[in-house]
C-alpha cells in the first residue's frame, strides 16, 4: 500500500470485484471455447467410447481418425468445398464491383438525380417484396438451379454500400478536383484515386461479403436443385440437421456405421469451420473496424 499513497485507496469491495471480474471473464471464455473444444475432442474419439461417455468431455475417449478419413474420402465434401470457394471468390468480386460503383455514384455531390436514387436504394432496407415474390423473380429470370442465383440477386448489401459511400464521401474533394482539372474521367478518378484511398474500407467489405458467402445456405437451399452445385453449408445441413431428424424416426442399418456417423458429424463441423477458425485471429481487427465504421453512420 505504501507505493499507492498518491492514488486513491482501493477498497476491499473493489478488489473483490476485480478478482471476480477476472475470474468471470475466464469462465466466459471457457463457455465460448468449450463447444469447439468438445467438437474437436468428440471428432477424434472412438465412436463407441464416445457414445458410452456421460457428461462433459475433457479428453478424447480413445483415439480414432476414422471420422476424418471418411469425411475426407467423401466426394460430396470436396464438391461442397469447391463450390463454396467458387461462390466466395466470384460472389465477393461481384459484390465489391457493384457496391463500389453504387457507392461512388451516390457519394458524388451536386447531381440532380442522386437524391432520388439514394432514396430508391435506402428504401429497400426498410421494405421488400419478401421471400416469395423475390423467389419468383429469380426463377422468372431463369436463374433457378443456376450458380448465378447465389451471386447476382444479393450483389449489393445496402448496409455495406452505405459504409462504402461514407468512406468515399470522406475523401477530400481536392483530390478529385485536381484530377478532374487534369482531364481525368470519372472512371479514372474512381480507379486511380477513390479505390486506392478507400482500400481499408474495401478490405473490410471483402471480409464481410466473403464470410457471408462462406456461411450462406438459405438461398442455395431454395434456388439449387442439383447437389453438384451445393455449397458446403448445404451439405453440412443435410448431415447435421436433416439426418438428425430421420435418426429420430428410424433405426440405422448397422450399429458400427451408426456410431461412426456420430463422430462424422463432429468431424464435418471441424472440416467446414477450420478455414474461418484459422483466418479469424489475423482478421479480427478488420472485422471490428467494420463495426466502428458502420456504427458511425448507422
Amino acid at each position, binding site marked *: 500500500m505504501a507505493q499507492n499513497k498518491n492514488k486513491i485507496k482501493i477498497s476491499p469491495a473493489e478488489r473483490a470485484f476485480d478478482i471476480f471480474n477476472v475470474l468471470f471473464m475466464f469462465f466466459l471464455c471457457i463457455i465460448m471455447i468449450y463447444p469447439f473444444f468438445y467438437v474437436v475432442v468428440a471428432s477424434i474419439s472412438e465412436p463407441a467410447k464416445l457414445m458410452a461417455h456421460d457428461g462433459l468431455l475433457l479428453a478424447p475417449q480413445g483415439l480414432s481418425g476414422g471420422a476424418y478419413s471418411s469425411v475426407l474420402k467423401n466426394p460430396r465434401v470436396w464438391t461442397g468445398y469447391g463450390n463454396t470457394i467458387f461462390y466466395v471468390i466470384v460472389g465477393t468480386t461481384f459484390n465489391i464491383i457493384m457496391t463500389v460503383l453504387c457507392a461512388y455514384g451516390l457519394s458524388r455531390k451536386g447531381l440532380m438525380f442522386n437524391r432520388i436514387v439514394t432514396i430508391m436504394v435506402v428504401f429497400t432496407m426498410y421494405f421488400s417484396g419478401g421471400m416469395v*415474390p423475390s423467389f419468383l423473380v429469380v426463377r422468372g429470370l431463369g436463374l433457378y438451379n443456376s450458380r448465378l442465383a447465389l451471386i447476382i440477386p444479393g450483389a449489393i448489401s445496402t448496409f455495406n454500400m452505405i459504409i462504402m459511400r461514407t468512406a468515399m464521401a470522406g475523401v477530400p474533394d481536392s483530390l478529385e478536383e485536381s484530377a478532374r482539372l487534369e482531364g481525368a474521367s*470519372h472512371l479514372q478518378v474512381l480507379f486511380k484515386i477513390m479505390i486506392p484511398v478507400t482500400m481499408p474500407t474495401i478490405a473490410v467489405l471483402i471480409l464481410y461479403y466473403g464470410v457471408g458467402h462462406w*456461411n450462406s445456405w438459405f438461398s442455395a437451399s431454395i434456388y439449387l436443385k442439383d447437389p453438384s452445385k451445393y455449397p458446403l453449408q448445404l451439405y453440412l445441413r443435410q448431415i447435421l440437421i436433416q439426418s438428425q431428424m430421420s435418426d429420430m424416426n428410424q433405426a440405422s442399418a448397422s450399429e458400427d456405421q451408426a456410431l461412426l456417423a456420430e463422430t462424422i458429424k463432429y468431424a464435418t463441423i471441424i472440416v467446414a469451420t477450420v478455414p474461418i477458425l484459422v483466418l479469424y485471429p489475423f482478421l479480427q481487427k478488420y472485422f471490428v473496424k467494420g463495426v466502428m465504421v458502420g456504427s458511425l453512420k*448507422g
Partner: protein
Amino acid sequence: MSASSLQNGGNSGSPSPKVRDTSFKARAIRDLKRNYEIYLILVPVIVFYLIFSYAPMGGLAIAFQDWRPGRAMFGEGARWVGLKHFKDFFGSYYFVRVLRNTVTISVSSLAFGFPAPIILALMLNELKSKYYARAVQTVVYLPHFISMVVLCGMINLFVRDNGVITQVLGFFGFPKQNMLLNPDLFVPIYVISGIWSGVGWGSIIYLAALSGVDQQLYEAAEIDGAGKWMQTIHITLPCIVPTIIIQFIMRTGQILSVGQEKIILLYNETIYDKADVISSFVYRKGLLESNWSYSTAVGLFNSVINFALVTVVNKISSTVSETSLW
C-alpha cells in the same frame, strides 16, 4: 427544402449574364450532360435494384390474386380476389400462433439478449490488464463467425437425449430428453444460443462508446473522492446511455422480424406450436407447399407492420436523440 426556397435560389442565386433556362427539363438535360459518366456508372446499380428489389415489390400483387405459375400477374388473365388471403390468414388458427411465437421469441431475445453485451462491455472496460481484456475480446467475438448451420448443428448434437448439455443438466435433475422435441424449451434454446453467439460481437459498439469517455471526468471524480463504483454509476453509464437508447430503439423496430434461417434449422413438426414464426410460416407455405398467393399475403402483412414499426421508432429516435435512420 421547400419549393419557395428552390425558386429563390434559381432566380436570385445565379448571377450569370445570360438568362439561363431554369425549367426542370432544361436543368435536367444540363445535369445529365455534365454528369453523364456518373449516371452511366449508376446504371447497373439502378437496374440491379429495379430487378431484385422493386420487381418483387410489384410481385406483391399476387397477394391479392389467386396466382399460380403460368397465370398472368397483371392485365388480362390475372385473377384478382381482393383481401381473400388476408382474411383467410387472420381467421386461421395459424395467425395467432405465428404472431404469438414471433413476439415471444423476439421479446425474450430483447429482454435477455439486449442487456448482455452492455454488461459484458462494462466488465471488459473494468479489466485492469489491457492484454487480458484483448485476449477475452478475441475469444468472445469468435462465435459470431460460426455459420448458422454449424451453430444449429451443434445445438442439435448437444441437446438431444444423449447430448452433452442434456447430460450435464441431467446431473441437476433435468429429465433425459431430446430438448428440441420439447416445445417449452425452444425459446430458451433459441435465446441462449443467440446470446452465446452474439454477446461478444454486440459489445463492440458499447466498447467503442466507452473508449470515447473523457478520462478527465474520472480524474476529477477521484479527486472528489468517488470510488470506482460511483464512477461507473455517475460517469460511465451516463456516457453510453445515448448508444444504449439508439440500439434499443432500433431493436424495438425489429420486434416482428424474426429471421427464418435459425428457426428452420432448429424446429421440427413436434414443436411448431411454439417455434413457428411468421417468416418460417411464409417459407413453408410458399416455397415448400407452393401456396404462392397466400404466403405472399402473409409476408406482405409482416413487411407492412415492420415498415410501420421502423417508421414510428425512427420518429421517436429522432425526437429523443437527434439520431435518425434517415
